């Protein structure tokens, strides 16, 4: 599969940003072994926005943790721009369920947390941070505490924290699930635009079908545990400059939704 999708573009062979090959993961407990993922393979090309949906407990967050280098797969391998992943990689930025901003730090100090950890607090990195804060409307809140910001602004600050270390690939692990519905729609739009503007590759895991369709260009549907990829769909809308909100209004949206809903086969 991966050889097929190494496509030719203007005569240049492009290496995929992320290659996942035959990943399996088993968790070990005293009561026995739990297979979480089985033979998961896919590729993400540079600049692409990929969504992964699946029922809860299907191992999609495990998959993301493996790509982030936080846990090791039982078998299989992940490559980032053709290089085998061995641990946490600075090319990858990870966004978690909650914004996890530290209340004991100001917004500015929160945003440079990654730089501090990677010993990258250099003048030009800080300038990049200033630029991001300015561009995305947070420069007036630099000295505020996280609790003084709205949910949407906090999520923005969390994204800038991730972007500050300049990753090429962003992993979003149910990154919006802690927000209420209205805020969530607005934040989807906001974060999507920022990711596109910065030209990042993104992999988003969610259990929200609408969110996945509205943001992704390609969508993988996972099965129940042990998680495997059941289906892959390309999401295309007949419009220019799609955004998550405009996508939701497109006539194709409903069709994609029904197709995925059937595939997920949800029973109460």
């Amino acid at each position: 599969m991966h050889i097929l999708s190494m496509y030719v573009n203007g005569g240049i062979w492009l290496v995929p940003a992320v290659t996942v090959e035959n990943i399996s993961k088993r968790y070990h407990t005293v009561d026995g072994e739990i297979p979480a993922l089985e033979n998961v393979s896919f590729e993400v090309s540079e600049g692409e926005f990929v969504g992964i949906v699946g029922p809860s407990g299907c191992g999609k967050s495990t998959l993301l943790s493996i790509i982030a280098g936080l846990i090791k797969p039982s078998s299989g391998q992940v490559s980032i721009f053709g290089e085998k992943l061995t641990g946490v990689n600075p090319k990858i930025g990870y966004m978690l369920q909650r914004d996890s901003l530290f209340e004991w730090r100001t917004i500015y100090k929160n945003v440079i947390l990654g730089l501090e950890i990677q010993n990258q607090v250099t003048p030009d990195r800080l300038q990049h941070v200033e630029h991001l804060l300015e561009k995305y409307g947070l420069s007036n809140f630099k000295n505020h505490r996280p609790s003084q910001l709205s949910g949407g602004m906090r999520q923005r600050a969390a994204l800038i924290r991730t972007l500050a270390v300049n990753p090429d690939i962003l992993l979003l692990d149910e990154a919006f699930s802690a927000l209420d519905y209205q805020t969530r729609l607005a934040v989807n739009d906001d974060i999507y635009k920022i990711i596109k503007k910065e030209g990042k590759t993104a992999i988003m895991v969610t259990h929200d079908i609408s969110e996945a369709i509205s943001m992704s260009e390609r969508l993988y549907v996972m099965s129940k545990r042990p998680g495997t990829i059941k289906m892959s769909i390309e999401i295309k809308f007949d419009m220019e400059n799609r955004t998550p909100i405009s996508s939701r209004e497109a006539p194709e949206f409903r069709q994609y939704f029904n197709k995925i809903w059937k595939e997920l086969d949800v029973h109460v």
Partner: protein
Amino acid sequence: MYKNESPEQKKYLLKLRAKKRLIAFLRLMLLVLIFASWEAVTRLNWLDPFIFSSPTRILNTFIRIYKEGSLFTHVFTTLWETVVGFLLGTIFGIIIAIILWLSETCSKVLEPYLVVANALPKIALGPVFIVWMGAGPVAIITVAVTVSLIVTVLEVYTGFLETDSEKIRLVQSFGANRKQVLTKVVLPSSFPVMMNALKVNVGMSWVGVIVGEFLVSKAGLGYLIVYGGQVFQLDLVMTSVLILSVLAALMYFGVQLIGKWISARY
């Protein structure tokens, strides 16, 4: 806060302030009431002032030992021992908690020992320390440290374990090592827990020092209390207890103030 408050808001704020003042007033009145009735019942000889002392007798005793010049020696001895015991107990407690956090094996191995050590009345070790270290301030401070140490370890370690795991995952995704997880997340997020442990330790250190002084000392408030009891000078005992409660309160508020100062700056 706002310039154009509505009359309702003003009324609300006034009510809040009035309530606050009332509480402060009642608190003061309760104190006055206790001392006044104490004075009254002993003057009327409903209670024997020789056994129960009285506020005026306490005041006279206070003035007497102040004039004798021994007041400061006693107060200073006890205060010094308590502060040293408090600092050592807190610092070592936090260091041990960090070690336990760094090594899961270590904490698992030590767990039953810590539980027993916590349940054991540390005072029981007093005589042992006196034999080992001699009848002096070192033994007294050691008692104070043992009393506060184990509680600090358990409380701070539990606080460390309760650190939000998502925050830890976040810094790990930036490539943080164990030491960075500790300094960037675990320690700052456990600051309120540590402050609480410190406040508990103030009381613990006083207990340790006073008991230590009961056992061995030649000076200090604990010594005055034991001596006063032995020679049936209850005035002296009551005076020492009052001084003690004022000092303990001051130290408690001092720690609270330092905590507020640190969290405001950090």
